[in-house]
């Protein structure tokens, strides 16, 4: 396994339908690129022990090792992972509020971190004119605001880190989905030697994620909408059943049932809804708290960030009602159980869980 590289990555992950299109394997080498929602292997690489394979979130992943590295304890079933604190929050900045997807907490936190010199840039996702997501490093408030919206398409965020030259010594914040954070965590557990120091990523913010839309979804959007005019995409929570595309003047909707066929199959093998290895995880406030974010503080770095943001009055918070927390935990646990079943039905047994390295104890518990 230590010898595995591009060929194995291509066969085990990309061709097997496990690729989340996170960009972990692109940007660093000339052999893999992301193109129109596919990871493409351009040339044959003969290296053994490739970093593409090592840092992919869907190659064998020792969850205990990552958990020990980040939290000092092995990986256990905590429904939403290790949480120091869970609450609701929103930005106090009206401009951020207006431009953000939900409560604007991510943009506010990073804005404070930039202003305070805690980071020099934020590794984020930016949509281009045609609303194709790309990895991007935002180095000021304007650029942060350009990255405030989500697209529901997978973004090769990690490509932006992989692109950094070795001698780069800037400090970064990072915003990604659970798969992005998983890849970043694998890099942190065994840091790459011939690229920019991964320890310079000081703060990892994970976004809650159920699935992304890929494999022809962008073409579907292109055919239906004038994407250059779109300013926001949204999937409003129950009881709505639509995918909404906002322009400055109007909102167009398509039935959610038309969208679901584009859900990346790889997402059905993911057990992490809340980005459990992030410093701070952020999701929407759902229907009950529209315009708010659900926030999970997981690490010391996350807690410090929160304190600074609070002291600068960049965000306001309120406790999360017990019922909402219960719902969040139930949703997260349900994804874990469902995905584990999906993995088992793909491999034919618990002896082979594809990439997932978790304890026997945990497997039994999730299968109950």
């Amino acid at each position, binding site marked *: 396994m230590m010898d595995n590289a591009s060929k194995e990555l291509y066969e085990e992950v990309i061709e097997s339908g496990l690729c989340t299109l996170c960009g972990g394997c692109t940007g660093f*080498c*000339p052999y893999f690129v992301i193109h129109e929602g*596919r990871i493409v292997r*351009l*040339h044959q690489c*003969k*290296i053994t*022990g490739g970093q*593409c394979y090592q840092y992919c979130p869907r190659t064998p992943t020792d969850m205990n090792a990552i958990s020990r590295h980040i939290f000092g304890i092995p990986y256990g079933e905590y429904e939403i992972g290790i949480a120091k604190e869970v609450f609701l929050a929103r930005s106090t900045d009206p401009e951020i509020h207006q431009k953000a997807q939900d409560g604007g907490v991510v943009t506010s936190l990073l804005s404070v971190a930039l202003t305070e010199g805690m980071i020099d840039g934020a590794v984020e996702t930016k949509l281009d004119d045609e609303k194709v997501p790309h990895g991007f490093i935002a180095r000021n408030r304007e650029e942060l605001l350009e990255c405030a919206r989500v697209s529901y398409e997978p973004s090769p965020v990690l490509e932006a880190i992989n692109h950094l030259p070795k001698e780069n010594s800037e400090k970064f914040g990072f915003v990604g989905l659970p798969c992005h954070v998983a890849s970043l965590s694998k890099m942190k557990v065994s840091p790459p030697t*011939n690229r920019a120091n991964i320890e310079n990523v000081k703060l990892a913010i994970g976004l809650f994620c159920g699935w992304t839309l890929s494999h022809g979804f962008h073409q579907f959007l292109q055919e239906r909408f004038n994407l250059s005019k779109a300013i926001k995409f949204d999937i409003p929570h129950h009881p709505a059943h639509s995918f909404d595309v906002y322009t400055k003047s109007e909102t167009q909707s398509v039935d959610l049932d038309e969208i679901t066929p584009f859900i990346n199959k790889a997402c059905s093998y993911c057990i992490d809804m809340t980005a459990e290895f992030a410093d701070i995880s952020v999701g929407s406030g759902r229907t009950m708290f529209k315009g708010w974010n659900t926030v999970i503080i997981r690490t010391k770095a996350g807690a410090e960030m929160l304190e600074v943001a609070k002291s600068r009055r960049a965000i306001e918070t309120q406790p999360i009602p017990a019922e909402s927390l219960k719902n969040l935990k139930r949703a997260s646990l349900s994804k874990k159980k469902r995905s584990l079943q999906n993995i088992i039905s793909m491999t034919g047994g618990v002896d082979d869980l594809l990439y997932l390295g978790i304890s026997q104890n945990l497997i039994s518990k999730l299968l109950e």
Partner: protein
Amino acid sequence: MSNIEIDAPGTTQLLLGNEAIARGALEAGIGFATAYPGTPSSEIMATLAPIAKKMGIYAEWSINEMVAFEAASAASLSNIRALSSMKANGVNVITDFLVNLQMTGIKKGLVLVVCDDPGGMTSSNEQDTRPIAKWLNIPLLEPSTAQECKDMTKWAFELSEELGMVCMVRSVTYLSHTRGNVRFGRLPEETKKAHFADFYDIDDPQQSKYTCGMQFHPYKQSEVLLKRFSKAQGHCEGSPFNSYNGPNTPDLIIFTSGICWTYATEAVKILNLQDRVGIVKLGTTWPLPEEFVTRHLERSNKVLFIEEISPLVEQSVMELAASLPADRPRPTFYGKRSGHVRAWGEQDLNLVIQSIATVMGTSYRSRQSSNAEYQSTLKEVAKTLPARPLTFCPGCAHRASFWAIKIALQLDGRNGFVTGDIGCTAMGMISPGSFQVRTYYAMGGGVGIANGFGHLNQFGFSQPVIAVCGDSTFFHASIPGLINGVWNKSNFTLTILDNSATAMTGFQPHPGTGITATGETGKKVSIEAICRSLGVSVQVCDPFDLTDTVNTLLKVMRNEGNATVVILRRECELVRARRERKKPYKMYVDSSRCIGEECGCNRICTRVFSCPGLVWDRDAGKAVIDEAVCEGCGLCAEVCPQGAILKEAL
């Protein structure tokens, strides 16, 4: 270049076989010469063209062999001796015309010189053209030496005129490209006057000799042809180019022709069998000089045939032997049929020695093969020699073109592929062309076969097809294929790799260059104007702009249901370098940035991109520029993922 045009009878010059052929044509007093470039034939026109004006000859590089030969025929029909030269593949191109020209016959001497390539060293195959001469009843002469190249070419014109039919002179790579002493004859001093006579005889239209006047009764013309050809027999019978050398009653008699005669002669000497083995050298291999052959067949009860590629002499002599009366002796025949002579590839001295030794039952071990020390030294030396695979020249635009095509096909992701063509672009099959070419047959075959792939969609075929041809190949045979694709709405992209030269064969001009064989300014023909006139979408890219080329190809591949054209234009680097005599960039590697064998690079520059100007310093573990080889094109700077290869404008 040898001084082949001097009028100094009796003097001797060291000439290439092909130069000797050109001299032979001069001594025969040709007024017209045409050719299409093709190794190993190209030097014939390359020798004639520069002196054509001075010698009062019209010489041209034609668009293809067919037009070349047709044009030469016009001269012959108009009372001017004409020469047309080509490689073996070219004869396939002219065959239709040739079959019909045989029906009408010609007027002044018309000689078709064909240079075959046994072993296929510089060809797509090792076709033997001689059977075409036998099939079409064309007198066939096979020189063995440079002297004979000259003498037999000259004689071929006389024979052609005498018989009223085209004559073929057949050379091979080894003969065309080897120098030998040639004793010059006289250059004729006659005034040539062209006139297309006998076009139409108003009193007796049936006598309209030089046109296809009999086309409604071709079988009648066949009879005329056979009668005409039967006269050839007599001329061959007495020809001094057929000879026998050996004892009166040898144990073994060898029948051979062309370059193989030199191998056989030397082999018999080395084996010290001069007293036991005789050699019949055939200069006129078709028609066979039957009496001459029969006479020598009777000398021995063992007959061995030494020839390259096809068993033409072998089969013809065996046919003749089978027709002899029953009381004549029946020798045992050895050759390709019996397995004593290798049936493919070039012959060489060692092979011929082995064949003779086997038939004679003598053992032979060469000094080299029996010397253990020599053999072990050979192995040691072989280890130190680097492998030298075929490659594009440093700075070649085709490397960039195939790199872009590969990336575009991978990004497209529908298992698209390239149908290839003849010329430098054929190297798209191997490493320098990123292994992209999947089919490779004949001039124009790339776009031709793409026509078919592009119509398979109704059977579930969904792979994009990129047909590739060079600029000269486009003019030669690709235009009909493109028109057919446009007309029938076939789904392919014709990618013309326009390096503005017939590079593979030595930079002969073509219609796109606008320069003629004799260096004059002709009319320049625009590739894109031709394509655009068909109403097809035409994009022109510089292949060195990799991003633009990749994006253009990606876009046109999606243009389903239509043939499209992309011209990837950049001048052949060798032509540019020769003209400008300086490199555009100084290239160098910042070794602190080069990560070479590490993950993140894996030597993409020297292992995958593999331009000869980039070399791998094993000791340092870094890429370096080989300044003696690098042309300074700057392309590798675009390919290096670490930005370690830098270019500095000069």
